[in-house]
């Protein structure tokens, strides 16, 4: 199992050939209270860096980008009824979607946890 991060504040946990994607604790703190999350349906084909989901807080609506290319296998249905999960458990129960990796080499361009921490420290 490996954990990756993007500069757009998504995290990605890879287990086998399947990656789980969500937004980081830093991102949820910046967004403020999340009131709505729109996640992609299973079967959606996502391209690396393109809009994959939408998260709306009391401040603003923001896009969530897919850190890698692949096909969605599952969306987190719990977010529909309880978008607050993104605030309370951003890196666990508040995940957005799972996808199969179409190009595992795309992982090479992502940050690890230490790299992301030092990136956030510069903001």
């Amino acid at each position: 199992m490996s954990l990756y991060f993007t500069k757009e504040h998504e995290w990605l946990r890879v287990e086998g050939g399947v990656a789980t994607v969500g937004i980081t604790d830093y991102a949820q703190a910046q967004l403020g209270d999340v009131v709505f999350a729109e996640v992609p349906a299973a079967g959606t084909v996502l391209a690396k860096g393109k809009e994959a989901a939408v998260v709306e807080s009391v401040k603003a609506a923001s896009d969530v980008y897919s850190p890698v290319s692949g096909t969605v296998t599952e969306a987190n249905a719990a977010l529909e009824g309880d978008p607050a999960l993104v605030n309370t458990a951003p890196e666990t129960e508040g995940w957005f979607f799972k996808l199969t990796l179409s190009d595992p080499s795309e992982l090479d361009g992502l940050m690890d946890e230490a790299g992301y921490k030092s990136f956030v420290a510069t903001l």
Partner: protein
Amino acid sequence: MSMNTVGRVTRLSGAPATELPGGITFTGNRALMLEEPLIFERGAVDRCGVDLPEVPAVASRLGTLGRTAPIDLPGLSEPEAVRHYTRLSRQNYAIDLGIFPLGSCTMKHNPRLNEKMARLPGFADIHPLQPQSSVQGALQLIDVLATWLMRLTGMPAVAMSPKAGAHGELCGMLAIRAALEARGDARKVVLVPESAHGTNPATAAFCGYAVENIPANARGRVDVDALKARLGPDVAAVMITNPNTCGLFEPDMVEICAAVHAAGGFVYCDGANFNAIVGRVRPGDLGIDAMHINLHKTFSTPHGGGGPGSGPVVLSEALAPFAPLPFVRKSKDGFELVEEELAGPNSQSFGRMVAFHGQMGMFTRALAYMMSHGADGLRQVAEDAVLNANYILASLKDIYTAPFAASGPCMHEALFSDDFLHDTGLTTLDLAKAMIDEGFHPMTMYFPLVVHGAMLVEPTETESKASLDQLIGAMRSVAERMLESPDDFRTSPHLAPRRRLDETAAARKPVLGYKPPLSDAA
């Protein structure tokens, strides 16, 4: 503690007014600051403000569909109803009460002369279906206003029917799509810079285009190189807001338009901020193809809840044939409202956007505003609006973080960020709430998105120096006190009729209708 008939506490929901020797008042009122319950609590379903005749017995044709439960409308006498809404109106904020510094939306004084003109029976009491021969004056007014708009923008055509800004965007983008389709060109992408209005990408997506962002540069303007690099045979249009949402003029418009045209695309300009350049810059000279003009912003017609919008769209030579129906045309017998055009230059119209032709009341107000200002007056509108915004920027940039102040003067709005509050744990939201206690409508917050914790202030030309000094004084004082004793501001506002509302709960669990208290329902 005083209660109303349904057990709701009628005092102000804030902390008790401890400065009063006797604590809180019996009524919950604070002198002229009057508490007011909901209309359902004021009235009663078994009362009625007027005597209505008995309903004659008629056979129901609804069968089982007829309503059996009472409709539960609250009954109030006329003075009760008048007082209810008057009391609520006193808890509201309006341009008639003070400066409305919402950036990104020009909120200026609505001159009373406009209102007088709009109420002339020949404009106010006409019906859209009456014979055209009987509304020649109204049609002429639309034609004169159209001429002014074309003159001010340096554009050869204008579509008057769109009902507001975003509707105008839709009109412009539909014209662009029609022009592309007419030449058999199926371009699929619309480029939208980060500094554009939020409605722009929504409009492009609604028209079926894929939207791609173009980043802003460090000076808050469109990154021209990034834009040029993305242009190609798949790009239908670029949508640019100028002046942009950072309150900055896009200086490279001529170069951008030339590059987009060379690549076979069109340029849509969001004209929401036209107030900053009216009389000074003609968008047609910059090379744009379509731009909407918010009459309810630049030309002072009532805005928001105060009145309907109106968003005429000026069009270039290339787009003019695709303008929507209906439109006013001058003919030898006077003016005609063209509802259908099967042949001739307008036969390529993309169709109709509205049932009737635009907002007559707004047309009248906008033309009254233009004619009372004259060409020199409209130029001074832009100059004073920009001067006022720069006065605010210059007066506050030593304490507020002003991200783009180093790149020169702003246009019609001053942009700040909450970086200066970083160590206090306070944010733009807390500052906006504190401004409510100061008796101001807060500025736009958290927009544009390119700036962290944005605060966007647009004073408009309406405000005098004394009025600006009041706002600046309040913003400065609030900022100083927030830095000094941050904890005092985490629960602002403290003096408003309602304390800080739970916006999260309101968004997550909205209650959109009146629910009687549980004790009644049981």
